[in-house]
């Protein structure tokens, strides 16, 4: 049964109202520091967070940046405390490239603070090394020289790269809290 002209008109008005609201939401949500966001957050933030439409669209911005999480296992008999491990280790450990990319994203997120590392990544790492007493973390960044400097030295990428280590702390492996 086709809608009546009046019914169609009402539907268009309702849809138009939703369109305006939704456009306002997807325009305001990516900028959570803005005045508009703070002014509308009761409605728009709730709408966005409920449907998972809240995102800042930050890809390689403001600057391209990639950090890697490295750790050393302390107190284990099966591995030397000097051996550096990476999380994620490699594509093979993750199973596939997609898995590796996701784990890299996960590691960068967790490395934001010692608290998130301790609460949410530590149990997994400690479970991987059952006899470890603690894990010492470092955040590894690569410093790449400016183009002009790279032109002067004439080395390949591996030689140009300078690793910058930022200690992220040593966290104890508390056995009673770990999953079996």
């Amino acid at each position, binding site marked *: 049964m086709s809608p009546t002209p009046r019914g169609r008109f009402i*539907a*268009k008005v309702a*849809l*138009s109202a939703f*369109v305006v609201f*939704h*456009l306002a939401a*997807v*325009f305001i949500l*990516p*900028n959570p520091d803005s005045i508009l966001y703070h002014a509308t*957050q009761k409605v728009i*933030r709730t709408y966005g*967070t*409920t449907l*998972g*439409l*809240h*995102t800042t*669209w*930050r*890809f*390689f*911005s*403001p*600057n*391209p940046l*990639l950090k*890697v999480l490295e750790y050393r296992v302390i107190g284990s008999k099966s591995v030397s405390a000097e051996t550096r491990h990476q999380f994620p280790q490699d594509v093979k450990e*993750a*199973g*596939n*490239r*997609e*898995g590796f*990319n*996701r*784990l*890299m*994203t*996960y590691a960068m997120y*967790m490395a934001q603070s010692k608290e*998130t590392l301790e*609460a*949410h*990544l530590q*149990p*997994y790492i400690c479970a991987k090394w059952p006899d470890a007493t603690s894990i010492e973390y470092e955040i590894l960044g*690569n410093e*790449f020289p*400016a*183009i002009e400097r*790279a*032109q002067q030295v004439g*080395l*390949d*990428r*591996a030689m*140009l790269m300078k690793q910058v280590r930022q200690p992220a702390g040593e966290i104890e492996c508390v056995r009673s809290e770990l*999953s079996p």
Partner: protein
Amino acid sequence: MTACLLTAVERKARDFSRAWDNFWFAPVDLYNVGLFRALLGFVLLSMYWSRFANVELFYFNTGLLHADFAISIIPEYFQSSWPVIFKSDSANYYGHLSYLILLFLFALGVIGRWGTWAIFLLSLSFMQRNFPLVYGADLFAHFWLFYLSFVRHNEHWSVLNLRRGWKPSSLPQLNSDIVSSAFIRLLQIQLCLSYAYTGLEKFKGTQWWEGSAVWYVVGMQELVAVDLSFIRHFPAVIAIMSMTTVLFEVYFIFGVWNKKLRPYWLGFGFFFHLGTAVLMTLWYFFLVMTLPYLLFVNSQKLRLFISGLAARVPSK
């Protein structure tokens, strides 16, 4: 004088109303959105099949993140008041399996709007269950699923049409209802807005402004497997690549809505994302970003193109 003013205002209001109606609710051929849905469905099926290989690590309580912390780990301004996560391991396992089955049916065009809502809710559930694992392709896929939940996307490019004897090269003209039209428009605008925001965010960084950002991307050996450091001898190329990235994104909305510029903007975008896919193995991101370009292509030209391709397939 007042009567003239009122007439002029009335005329303007009528013109605006007509233009609004034409922009948001004019019927569009569902051919393009059907093809978009079919291709997107298979891409997401492949992408989330890869994720399913690690379902225990990613979503079980014995894996990376226990369900009790799933919501608290999300930054406060992103936290939902009504999360839809699965808490038990078996629910996550079967939930993800269901997600894959629904995506398969979605790709085949068997399920319509209501089924797509179910896929969208499952997508939301897994995003909230382990938020730190979410990356670009997931975000865009989630948005596309949201909009497609309102669109009659399975009128074309559906296996259900095989019983009607419809062939992909000769599908009849089927036009959208007003809801489908509005949400196809919203999807188009969302793509433009996302590009604009991502471009404007880049302008906050000095490396994109000074044109050296691509050089630093080349230096990321974890992402870019091939050593492209020879490019240092062509600094102008680096600068052009960096600036065109930002200009392409910020001005996408203007380029793509201009009929003369549209093919060039879409063509540039296709090869830009293809380049990132080849260099950084971001294949799913490339596909999730460029498949919506189909919604900007003239449907008659797309039909001719597909018919031309189909004509080259040898018949039995």
